[in-house]
């Protein structure tokens, strides 16, 4: 018995922000740290 949940591949936040011309502003204002979610354990 496999239970499957289909995933949709939608627009990323980056794509939306690029379309609106806001990407550069947002990436500078909210710089992304990919390790932030793991920092507590490393």
């Amino acid at each position: 018995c496999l239970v499957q949940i289909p995933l949709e591949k939608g627009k990323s936040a980056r794509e939306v922000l690029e379309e609106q011309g806001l990407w550069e502003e947002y990436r500078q204002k909210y710089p992304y740290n990919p390790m932030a979610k793991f920092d507590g354990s490393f």
Partner: protein
Amino acid sequence: AVGPESMTNDAGLSYYGVISIGNPPQSFKVIFDTGSSNLWVPSIYCNSAACNNHVKFDPGRSSTYRQNGSPLSITYGTGSMTGFLGYDTVTVGGLTVTNQIFGLSQTEAPFMQYMQADGILGLAYPSLSASGATPVFDNMMNAGLIDQNLFSVYLSSNNQRGSVVTFGGVDTNHYSDSITWIPLSNELYWQITVDSVSGNGQVVACNGGCQAIVDTGTSLIVGPQGDIDNINYWLGASSQNGEYMVSCNNIGQMPDVTFNINGQQFTLPASVYISPSQNYGCLTGFSGQGTNLWILGDVFLRQYYSIFNRGQNMVGLAKA
């Protein structure tokens, strides 16, 4: 008190699935994130632009909701989410998990406004979970809802549809060849040991071995800055504001990058690790940061069907 837990806030994330919470059910789009362990969704107690752009859970509309009330604070690189905890029935793909503890957001970072997903469903180990909240998958296992204590993920490369999370088993339709089973090196995340990263037969990164987290909640392949610089230099990419760009015309001539794991080779062709950007040409999927840890995110997982085996504490990888 609820301790802070860092969370995902990756602008490149694009895969989400639908779950429901409460009775009658309220539906939410969530990112299935193997790099965290909490479930949370926006709530009616949040009125920021980020929350107003998403579906909000209303506990008053659910006959099965029970308040926990403990505060929840999740900090991440570009902002934070705060809220409180409650219990309700959560339905995931036809599996009904009763009394599931989850977070109801009260504040969210402005950045969240632009994400299509409403919330996050964490699929890592319970010891990572904020406030000790039992993760959804642990409740599935404890209630005997699934045949095997594992789940698997297929991320389609191009199509908007076709990607899937499978609970309780492996879908043989989504991979070819055999599965390589890799023991976890840390049963907190889905963390494994990578022996090296190579290209054209030469080691280009992770010389002598390194640790990597298999994370559906990270869009790129992330590694130590020096190693990532080496790979991108070797690929001929140029750096701008922390991103690495190549000419889109060169993709056909660019080499494979191979992750050597547990004696097996996991190879990524350029068509997998290069992606076009609307305003920025073509970007490589290798991103640097300041620790020694690697993250094998969606760029890697689109090429390799991944199986997350809680029963045996192993990750399985097979060619998607």
